[in-house]
């Protein structure tokens, strides 16, 4: 009998792992979440780690339960800076390698929004259309810091990985 129960539990677990976000989200009981991630550093390992945190977060809560934004300002813009554009800007690193771009676009496909600080674009001489990976006018916010404050005032939870 005990073995049967074990077997049954294992099958259930496997099913839960196969089915997508919805099931796991309901299982975990997290409900809906609004979250803002803050990136203002240019260490590519730390940035990749942050993207991994975000993917784990989506896995735990379910993409359809999650309104997730990433605010990039200062050195954080290097996450989206394409290596060939580095010399045109005043940033010191360009971390949007093919590998990083794949991670970013994978997150975007799951509804993650990346917001870029206009003050940094100006200050670091970055042209978002030519220098950054997949950024559109709608992704630009006037100030990254003010955006972080605004989103928190709107009920977003702040996470700095």
């Amino acid at each position, binding site marked *: 009998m005990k073995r049967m129960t074990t077997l049954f539990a294992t099958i259930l677990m496997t099913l839960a792992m196969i089915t997508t976000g919805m099931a796991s989200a309901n299982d975990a009981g997290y409900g809906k979440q609004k979250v803002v991630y803050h990136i*203002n550093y240019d260490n590519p390992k730390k940035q990749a780690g942050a993207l991994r945190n975000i993917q784990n977060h989506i896995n735990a809560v379910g993409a359809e339960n999650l309104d997730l934004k990433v605010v990039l300002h200062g050195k954080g813009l290097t996450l989206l800076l394409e290596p060939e554009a580095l010399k045109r800007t005043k940033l010191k690193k360009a971390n949007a390698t093919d590998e990083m771009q794949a991670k970013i676009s994978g997150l975007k496909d799951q509804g993650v929004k990346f917001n870029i600080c206009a003050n940094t674009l100006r200050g670091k001489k970055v042209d978002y259309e030519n220098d950054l990976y997949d950024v559109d006018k709608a992704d630009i916010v006037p*100030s990254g810091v003010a955006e972080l*404050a605004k989103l928190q005032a709107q009920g977003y939870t702040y996470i*700095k990985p």
Partner: protein
Amino acid sequence: MTPGRRIDPMQDQELHALVDGEMSAAEKVALIDRLQRDHYRRTALCELRNLKEMVRTAYEEVPVPASRPAPDDEPEQGRGWLAAVAAVVIASVATLFAAGPELLPGSSERFVLLDPDGKGARPAQAGDEEMRIVFHVSGDDPEKSDEILREVEDMLATYGEKGRKLRIEIVAHGKGLAMLRQELSTQKEKIAELSRRFPNLTFVACMNTVKRLRVEEGVIVHLLPEVIPIYSGVAHVVKRQQEGWIYIQV
């Protein structure tokens, strides 16, 4: 415990024992085997580990006082987090008393309450009420602190022009203290200017860091005249978040 039921991680003594390394190898293997089949307890385990990590991080900034009271028995179940925060606050206050008020000669009178009117402790409710932001500076990258001062200046100016209320605290501890030290700050003039222009902007320094520098490295810290000292920077930003302030880590 029945697999598949959601549980409060605080109530699960077995998980506590695992996280705290109190189990024998055989017990660990048995528990880990059972956890394989219990999604909720695995989640609970993650939460417990996170909590432990957070508490440890907080304690890193709080030196252990010389006369440490004997630890209490089992903390009350379900109150672990509150107890942890309280412990951090108590430890930092105790440290300060142990050190005496001679931390900064002649500065004890500047240990003032940051909110003499008490309004800072009330979270803003409606959109037209005062916006409160606490910036937590723990690194010494001058590029980041430059940027934050520029952004803060912009926000204060914009809010001022629009007649909206804004209160900002910049709390520095650990390496972040460099920004507020006479010897190391690259923004002395800027900080003086901003403090003159905006009474709703406060610079706050962690005295645990000041004391640690003196005890461990023999460094006597001189803070900028605009800076208000507080017992523990970490405890202060925790308090501010509990009071509903918006939190941004620099």
